[in-house]
């Protein structure tokens, strides 16, 4: 499902007040997305945004996701021109957050990267996987894989659900939810 930012709010977006209103509207739409699906914040037609708008709208969405809100459904950014992308990079980096940007030919991490791009690349190939699968692919410990996957869940590119493995106990299963890559 695409959330068309410019159709609802205009081509130039500024202020924290506006950012908060847009975020609250996006959260309403996110609450209607089925678990396992994703909402794409489509910035086609948006010519410019301010740092304060980007922080209040997008960065705080990521902040709430890192606290566990809407962790069972995905979120990605699409249609951003260079100006919008650059401002979003700045606001996310300032908070040490990341988000997923869908471009015409690829999917990228914007903001603080810290090896997330490599993790996302493996995740996109696996589609559904466990932390152990990622650890194996990247040659890292399961603990390190868990830490990276927690950040990927916050970006909205991956969702997780609790599963009971064959041998008992509990673990998380992860699935990529970015449209066209899921």
């Amino acid at each position, binding site marked *: 499902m695409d959330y068309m930012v410019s159709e609802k709010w205009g081509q130039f*977006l500024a202020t924290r007040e506006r950012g908060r209103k847009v975020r609250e509207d996006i959260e309403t739409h996110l609450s209607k997305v089925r678990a396992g699906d994703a909402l794409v914040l489509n910035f086609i037609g948006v*010519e410019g945004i*301010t740092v304060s708008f980007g922080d209040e709208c997008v960065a705080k969405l990521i902040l709430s996701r890192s606290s566990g809100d809407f962790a069972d459904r995905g979120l990605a950014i699409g249609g951003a021109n260079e100006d919008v992308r650059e401002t979003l990079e700045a606001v996310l980096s300032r908070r040490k957050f990341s988000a997923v940007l869908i471009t015409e030919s690829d999917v990228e991490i914007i903001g603080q990267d810290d090896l997330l791009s490599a993790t996302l690349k493996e995740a996109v190939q696996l589609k559904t996987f466990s932390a152990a699968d990622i650890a194996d692919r990247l040659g890292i410990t399961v603990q390190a894989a868990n830490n990276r996957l927690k950040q990927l869940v916050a970006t909205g590119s991956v969702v997780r659900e609790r599963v009971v493995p064959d041998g008992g106990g509990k673990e998380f299963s992860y699935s990529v939810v970015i449209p066209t890559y899921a």
Partner: protein
Amino acid sequence: MVTRKALKTQIVSIPPRSSGTELHLAVSEVATGSYDATRIMAGSMNWVTPLDLCGLRAVLEFSALNLDEVFFDCPIDTSVHNYAERMALYEDLPDNVTLSRARPSLNTNARETLIELNRVDSPESVEHILEAVQKAAYHVFGRGRVATACGTAIAAAAENVLDHAESPIGAFIAAQRYENSGLELACVDLGFGIPTTLRRRAQYAQLSDIEAIECALEDGVTSANDGDVGRGAGLADLCKTVRLAGHSTLTIHSGRAYVTVGSGAQIAQVTTPATAVVGTWIAVRLKP
């Protein structure tokens, strides 16, 4: 028989090229409440910058709010008078402001080279500024990082006024694109000013006015008490824009501090004015 009260009138004389000091002083004097009326004598002005326009309008509005009558002696030079009209200096003035000359009637549309005076008092007005400045900056720097930074930085300065300044007149923003000297932008409000606003936070309470402005130019410094790491980008972004744009300067007058930041984002000049400046007066010159 009706007798008219003699008004105690303040006289503000603006030289041919304003330094801004006389406007700062005019606001301070009006704020003391010693006058009933003011006469702003701008007849000899032969050059008007965006900062002058923002400052003049701010003085007119502030005086109209606090005094019974405001007289404005318009520039005698017709080209300057016409420019003031084109920049909307005379548009929608309060009822108690009287102009010495009739407003000129103009047909020209120079929107690609100028951004007329805009009052900032709502998110919509900030978005209008963002759009106008970003588009004007495209003409100077082309599409890309610098033009984007110009728009977002000025919009951030405008938003600071909404969030922190509590200016009785809002803020005024204007811009002009020059063939040789690039883009010049100004933002004037008559609120608390940067030093007073920043000192509300305990950790900045001991700073002098100059130190407070220098501090506010650093990334992440905010007067918001929640310590939110996403805040405090406005003035720092203005600084970054000056650095990105090349041969550029940022001038801030607020409280008892005049601070100029030059290319390279280094503080180039610091002065302590004799009288505290009410509000915050910002001028930016951006040249590739």
